[in-house]
């Protein structure tokens, strides 16, 4: 399972926030844009920063610190995970991150660690969903290997995988269009594209794709198109239980299967025709 970790942004600012624990005003200036929403940060909400002892190092991503000292990346990860709970209410914003930080006992100024447009929060969410999907697909594969489950036909497998992944958006569906537009910002495109391609590759891998020719690209391109269009349909869907979306998905997957069937048929017809012509040529020349 390949987990996509996007690089934590603003590492240097993070260390300043964490090490300058005693200086409230310094931290206030980082999150100045969102300050109007907060009262002055509650006193005594510094335990995390103070207890970390000497200033944090960013060199060690796990090897060089003691057990109770977490790396910056882990801290950011925890803040973002906690922030997701507040997204339905606040959107993908610094407010949600601040609320998340509060639940962890951190100062709300920890939101200053991140961009104000919520990029990291959204990328974190996408990465988490992709990991969850990989885990589920892996479990399903194990069951099939142990003989405890039937192997699904390919169209059903693809349909289920895409549906499972899209269902993870349901709690955040109101605010998802906003997230999509942030993911399309030029700054975020490398990360969001990489997350998308690795998710699609994962789905095909667990579907049993073993192509080593150009089909590798064709299949992934087709599935990406299916996923993206279904996601857009879902944004506009108001039917109960998103049944319109799932029906759309089923039709698109069926179209893709038909297309590939037709392509195979065309190819074998073409080969048969060529063989016939060669045979005729040999006959004529004899």
């Amino acid at each position, binding site marked *: 399972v*390949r987990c996509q970790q996007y690089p934590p942004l603003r590492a240097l600012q993070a260390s300043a926030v964490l090490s300058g624990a005693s200086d409230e005003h310094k931290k206030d200036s980082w999150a100045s844009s969102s300050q109007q929403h907060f009262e002055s940060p509650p006193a005594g909400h510094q335990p995390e920063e103070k207890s970390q002892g000497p200033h944090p190092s960013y060199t060690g991503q796990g090897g060089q610190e003691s057990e109770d000292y977490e790396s910056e990346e882990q801290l950011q990860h925890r803040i973002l995970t906690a922030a997701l709970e507040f997204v339905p209410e606040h959107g993908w914003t610094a407010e949600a991150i601040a609320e998340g930080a509060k639940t962890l006992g951190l100062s709300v100024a920890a939101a200053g660690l991140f961009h104000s447009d919520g990029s990291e929060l959204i990328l974190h969410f996408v990465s988490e969903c992709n990991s969850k999907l990989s885990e589920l697909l892996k479990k399903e*594969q194990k069951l*099939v*290997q142990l003989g405890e489950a039937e*192997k699904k036909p*390919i*169209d059903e497998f693809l349909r289920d995988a895409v549906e499972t992944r899209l269902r993870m958006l349901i709690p955040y569906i109101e605010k998802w269009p906003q997230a999509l537009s942030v993911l399309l910002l030029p700054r975020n495109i490398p990360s969001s594209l990489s997350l998308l391609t690795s998710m699609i*590759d994962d789905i095909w*891998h*667990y*579907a*049993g*794709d*073993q*192509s*080593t*020719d*150009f*089909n*590798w*690209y064709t299949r992934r391109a087709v599935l990406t198109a299916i996923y993206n269009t279904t996601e857009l349909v879902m944004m506009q869907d108001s039917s109960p239980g998103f049944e319109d979306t799932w029906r759309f998905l089923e039709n698109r997957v069926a179209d893709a*299967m*038909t297309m*590939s*069937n037709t392509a*195979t048929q065309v190819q074998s017809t073409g080969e048969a025709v060529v063989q016939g012509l060669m045979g005729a040529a040999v006959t004529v020349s004899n």
Partner: protein
Amino acid sequence: PGAGAALRPCSSRVAQDGINKPVIDRIIRVDHAGEYGANRIYAGQMAVLGRSSVGPVIQQMWNQEKNHLKKFSELMVAYRVRPTVLLPFWNIAGFVLGAGSALLGKKAAMACTVAVEESISEHYNNQIRALIEEDPEKYKELLQVIKQFRDEEQEHHDIGLEHDAEATPAYSVLKTAIQLGCKAAIFLSERI
């Protein structure tokens, strides 16, 4: 049915942790492309010289290349490596090179073989060096495969020489041109 013969229950996977994925990716991608191209070159040569006296020799070398391609295709699936986008292009370019050199005569076909196999041997040697520098224990299986293939490509090279490759008119021009092409192909296939 429909979706093609390349769908089977996914089983053969290599543990992906601890290996230098970008390096292994490149190695397998370019080697797969190389064997695919070599296949097409021999196919082109057979199309022209299949019924001549060197037909059986070329056929035998082609069979070995087919095995190489099969092995790299398996490795590609096991390591989850993306094939190069340029495969359709190598398909045509390889066939044209093979057929073109064969149309120039048997010796020219052998010269083409010598040039290509020399490039490939050198390329495999570079990879073996790189892998040994990384970690010979971790990549033992891959090293074994590449070493064996390098030895077989070297054999093809020697067979080409035995069949009067060097007697080709404009041998050094032909050889240089083909080897430049191989270098470019290797460079591109590693990256795209």
